[in-house]
C-alpha cells in the first residue's frame, strides 16, 4: 500500500511538471526534426534557427528607450513607434529557416501543428491557405503566433511568444 501511495504521488508530481513547462512551436519542431533526421535523410546543415529570448528582448527595449531619450526625433519613425508599443507584449522570437528539403520540413511543421490541435488553432480570416498563421490562445490573449512562409527556395517559420491582446494585433496591423 505504501509503495502504491508513493507511486501515485510521483505520478501526480510528474503530471504537474509536465503541465507546467511548455516548449514553443519551433522548439517542438526542432525536436521532431532531430528525431526524424535519419528517416527523412535530412541534415542539420539544411536549416538554421535564430533565437531572441526574453533577456535580449529586454535589452532591445532598453536600447529603444535610450534612443528616444537621446534623440526625441527618433520616435517620428512610425514603424519604430509601433514596435515600441508592441515589444513589451513579446517575450521571445524564434525563426526557423530552411533552404534545403523544404517540403520535408514544411510537412513536419504542418503535421506537428495538426497533432497539437488542442493548443494551436489555424487563423484564416478569408479562407486563403497562404500565409499559414496559427495561434495559441490563453483566455483572451494570444500567447503564441506561428507563421509559416513557404516559397520556392526558402521555408521560414516565425514563432513569437508573449501576451498579445487584440490591441497588440491592431498596433501590429498598422505597421
Amino acid at each position, binding site marked *: 500500500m505504501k509503495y*502504491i501511495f508513493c507511486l*501515485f504521488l510521483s*505520478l*501526480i508530481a510528474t*503530471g504537474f511538471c*509536465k*503541465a*507546467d*513547462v*511548455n*516548449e514553443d512551436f519551433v522548439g517542438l519542431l526542432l525536436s521532431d526534426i532531430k528525431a526524424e533526421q535519419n528517416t527523412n535523410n535530412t541534415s542539420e546543415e539544411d536549416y538554421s534557427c*535564430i*533565437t*531572441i*529570448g*526574453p*533577456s*535580449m*528582448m529586454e*535589452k*532591445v527595449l532598453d*536600447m529603444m528607450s535610450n534612443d528616444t531619450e537621446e534623440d526625441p526625433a527618433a520616435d517620428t519613425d512610425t*514603424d519604430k513607434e509601433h*514596435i515600441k508599443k*508592441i515589444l513589451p507584449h513579446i*517575450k*521571445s*522570437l524564434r*525563426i526557423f529557416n530552411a533552404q534545403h528539403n523544404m517540403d520535408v520540413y514544411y510537412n513536419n511543421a504542418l503535421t506537428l501543428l495538426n497533432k497539437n490541435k*488542442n*493548443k494551436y*488553432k*489555424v*487563423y*484564416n*480570416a478569408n*479562407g*486563403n491557405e*497562404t*500565409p499559414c*498563421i496559427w*495561434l495559441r*490562445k*490563453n*483566455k483572451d490573449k*494570444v*500567447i503564441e*503566433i506561428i*507563421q509559416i*512562409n513557404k516559397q520556392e527556395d526558402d521555408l*521560414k517559420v*516565425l514563432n*513569437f511568444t508573449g501576451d498579445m491582446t*487584440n490591441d497588440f*494585433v*491592431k498596433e*501590429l*496591423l*498598422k*505597421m
Partner: protein
Amino acid sequence: MDYKYIEQLLERYWECETTPEEEQLLRDFYMQKNLPANLERYRSLFEYEKEEANISLGEDFDEKVLSKIDETVVKAQRNTFSFRMYPFYRAAAVVAIIFTLGMAIQHSFSTSNEGTSPTYNYASYKDTYTDPQVAYEQVASALKEVSDGLRESGLQPEDSINIKN
C-alpha cells in the same frame, strides 16, 4: 503367623528392590481378609494395582482409533489455474488503476491547458545575437512579415482575432 518376611518384602518394595515374583507375592498376601493393623494400611495400594492390571483395551478400541484418524486426514487442496493466477490479477489491477489515474491526470491537464497560463521553457533559449541592434532589426523584420501575413489572411485593424475552432 510370621509377618517378618512380609515386612522385609515391603521394606524392599519401598526401596524398589523387589523382583516381580516378590511383588506378586505381596499382592497375593494382601488378598487375605484378616491382616494385622500395621500391614492393613497398605491394602488399598495393592488392591488398586491388581484392579489396574485387569484393565485391558476394549473391543471397540480399534474402531474408535480408526474413526479418529479418519477425521484428521488432511486432503490435498487442488489449486485451480485462476487461483494460482490470483497474485498476477492483483498486480494487473493495481497497474490498471495507476494507468487509468495517470491518463485521467494527463487528460485533465491537457484539456485545462487553455485555462491556465502555460510557462515556456525560456531557460533553454540561447540568444543568437549579442548586439541588441541586430536583434531589433530581426524582430522588426519578423513583425512586419507577421503583420503582412495577418493582413493577407483578411484581418482588418478594427477586427479582433477570433480563433477558428
